[in-house]
Structures are given as C-alpha cells and as structure tokens.
C-alpha cells in the first residue's frame, strides 16, 4: 500500500504554513510525525491535495516544564517527553501514558500535538489533555486562537479545528505538587491502542479528597471525563472501598461499543477496574 499522489510543501515558518493551508483551502493536511497520517494515506483513507510539512520549523520544537504548566511545541516527539525525568517526577500520569504509546520507533517520530489533532478516542494524549484541561494554540492566516481540550474533541477522529488551522503548541496546566496522578490502560498486545485507558488526579487535605479528576478513553467517540464518579470522591476519605465505588459509578456512566477487540460489557468492566486501580495509584502518589 502506497500513499496517493500529493504535493509535498515544506513550510519555512508558521506564517508560511498557514498560507499554504489557506492556499489549498481545506484540502491540505499538516504533516508532523506522520505516525497516524501516513498509515491513513497508505490505506487510501485520506487523499489530500498537499501535505504541509512543519518538521523543519525549529520554533515549534521542544518542550518547557514550568512550575505549574508543561508547554509542548507542535513538533515535539513523544520520546522527548518520555525521556525528561522531571516531567515524570512532576506529573507521573504523563510518564505512565507516554511510555505506552506504540513502540520506541513510533515515539521517536510521532508528536504530542499530532496525536491530539488526530483525536483517536483510544489514544493517550487526547485523554491526558482532557485530564489536565490542556489549552491548544491554533494559528490560521486570520490569526490565533486558544481552544480548551474540553471544547476541542468533536467525535471519532474529529475536532473543531478548521482544516486551514495548525496547532502550534499545547499547554498542560499541572495539578498541584502535593497531588497524585496516574494513567493505567489495558491493551491486548504491547504497543497496541488500549481497549480502555483511565487517567486520574487526586488532591487530598486532612485525610480527605479535596479534588479528583477521572478521564476514560476507548469507551466513546472522544475521551470522557466522568463527573459523577468525581463527585463520589469529593470530601471522602481515600481508600479501596471508595475507589471501587468510583469504579462502579464509572461503569454506569460509560457506554462503550462492541468491536472485534472487545465487547461493550468487557470494556465497561475494564473501565470499572482500571478506575479503581488508577485512583489507588494516584492516591498513593499524593503527598
């Protein structure tokens, strides 16, 4: 399987990238890591007139870990995040999740922002973005706008991004230092997309939970936050029984589909069990 014909256009600046996207008026795709886009091309599921390559744009590379946020440029690779021990120390859910994306050769090339723009509901970065309330910076010829993760994912492989826009960066606000976080997922084979993944963040004070966040992937057409289960945790004392109860609530709130990889009942059970486990790990990590 080979990619269909397209025009390859290497952007020389972010402004140039937006001009190229405008020139093709919605019929061009941004090429970053290509680890999701190129398989789509090879399968002939996508047939754009042009690819706008942003890999040469140095200003879109790298990441910056601040006191309370992680800033990631549009061509920063998964592997760069994976190999920063400070990120793992500051927000372990990110490190848990990124290590489970594909294989090293995929993580060497694939990008954080590309995964978000691709919006696979079973992927790690869209789930992390929902868990941490990430903000995306999108540029078009007309100007720049900021989109919150909660308003970004529109459906299966679908976002509110206009085809003439390019995401230049993503900012992940980090939970307080005293909080705990975890990401747990289950896949049939190492490196596969997870059947279900669960991210959790817990903050505690005086032996009770002051804030909790739960995101589940692989159970809907986008990652989902489960507010009903979060409410069960607020103000309660952390413990196995409470986390099991939160898991049961998650199971009542998600409505997964059945496919050849796992039926709906199995996915719902996975969501329940992984929620309990993720909460336990997050609570254990909370100071």
């Amino acid at each position, binding site marked *: *399987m*080979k*990619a*269909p*014909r*397209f*025009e*390859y256009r*290497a952007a020389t600046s972010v402004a140039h990238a937006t001009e190229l996207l405008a020139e093709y008026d919605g019929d061009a795709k941004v*090429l970053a890591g*290509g*680890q999701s886009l*190129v*398989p789509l*091309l*090879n*399968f002939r599921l996508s047939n754009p007139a042009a*690819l706008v*390559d942003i*890999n040469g744009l140095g200003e879109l590379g790298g990441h910056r870990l601040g006191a309370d946020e992680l800033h990631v440029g549009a061509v920063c690779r998964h*592997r760069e995040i994976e190999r920063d021990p400070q990120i793992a120390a500051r927000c372990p859910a990110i490190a848990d999740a990124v290590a489970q994306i*594909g*294989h*090293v*050769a*995929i993580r*060497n*090339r694939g990008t954080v922002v590309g995964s978000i723009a691709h919006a696979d509901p079973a992927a790690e970065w869209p789930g992390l973005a929902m868990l941490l309330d990430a903000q995306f910076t999108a540029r078009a010829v007309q100007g720049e706008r900021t989109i919150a993760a909660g308003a970004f994912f529109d459906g299966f492989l679908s976002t509110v991004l206009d085809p003439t826009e390019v995401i230049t960066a993503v900012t992940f606000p980090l939970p307080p230092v005293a909080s705990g976080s975890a990401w747990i997922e289950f896949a049939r*084979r*190492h*490196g596969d997309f997870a059947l279900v993944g669960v991210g959790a963040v817990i903050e505690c004070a005086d032996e009770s939970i002051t804030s909790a966040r739960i995101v589940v992937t692989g159970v809907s057409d986008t990652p989902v936050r489960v507010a009903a289960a979060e409410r069960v945790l607020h103000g309660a004392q952390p413990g196995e029984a409470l986390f099991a109860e939160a898991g049961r609530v998650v199971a009542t709130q998600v409505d997964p589909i059945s496919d050849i990889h796992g039926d709906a009942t199995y996915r719902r059970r996975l969501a329940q069990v992984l929620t309990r486990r993720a909460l336990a790990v997050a609570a254990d990590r909370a100071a």
Partner: protein
Amino acid sequence: MRISMEVNGRGVEVDVEDRTSLADCLRDRLGLTGVHLGCEHGVCGACTVLLDGSSVRSCLLFAVQAAGHRVTTVEGLADGAGQGGLHPVQTAFMACHGLQCGFCTPGLVLTTCELLAEDPAPTAEEVRARLSGNLCRCTGYVKIFEAVDRAAELMRARSGTAAAPAGAAEDTR
C-alpha cells in the same frame, strides 16, 4: 523532487516522487533491499532504519523528509570489527541463531543497535519491551533475546567495559 541525504555514511542524491516512502526510495532507487517491507503501515517493524541514529519506520516517512539527514540501514552496520567484518549485533544474531526466515532480522538488528547504544546492559524486561515493536512470526523470540544478550556482551567487551555479571553492569550506566 531531487533530494540529498547521507545513507550509510555516503552522500547520495536521488530523484523521488513526493509520495515515495523512504523505504521504497532505499529499496528501489538505492538498492538497499535489506530494508524489508511487511505491513506498510507502521505495525511490523521490518522496515526499521536509523534516522540520525534513532529508529524510525521507513514506511511512515517520505523520502523527501529525509533530505539533509543521516540514514543507516542494515547494509551500513558492518564495521569490520566482528566476525566476518560484521557489526557485533549481527555477529550475535548469527552466533545465537536469532533468526529463521530472516525477514524481520534487519529491523530487529537495527532496533537492538539503538537499544544498546542507549543502554549497554538492558534488563530482560527492557529487551522484551523494546523488541515488541518488531514482529517475528518464526522464532518465538527466545533465540532473538539470547542474541541481544550476546550482542550486549560483545559490545561491552569491545568498548572496554568489564563484561561483568548483569548486576555489576548496572553500575557502569
């Protein structure tokens, strides 16, 4: 589009279509048929090459994107240091019979090279995780894991690091 890149230590110039994958360019234009194409969508790992020293799927990269970069294929590994002039990883795969049909072997060898460059004494668990992205449908991997262990020993010995028991090797990292 005419591109220039460094392939196995040699500068090359080649004309490619925009849509030509790096894998097809290496195989069809440069004759480097050690780059094997299995799935052509990034799953099997047979087409793994090193781009500036890092493993990548050459079926998921367009040749035009490699312009100005350094590409290493299995043909570029033999450095004259091992048995028959082979790279120690190749020597180890041969000595341990870490292959049967050989289709996955170039990808596994290059993945192993990257792993051992990063970590001269990986644990068994690390080796398994790292090689899980390269599908072998013949061997059941046992001989491949043995080959990686042997390669690590050979490379440590070559770099002058004491080829010590696994526990002691931890200290050299």
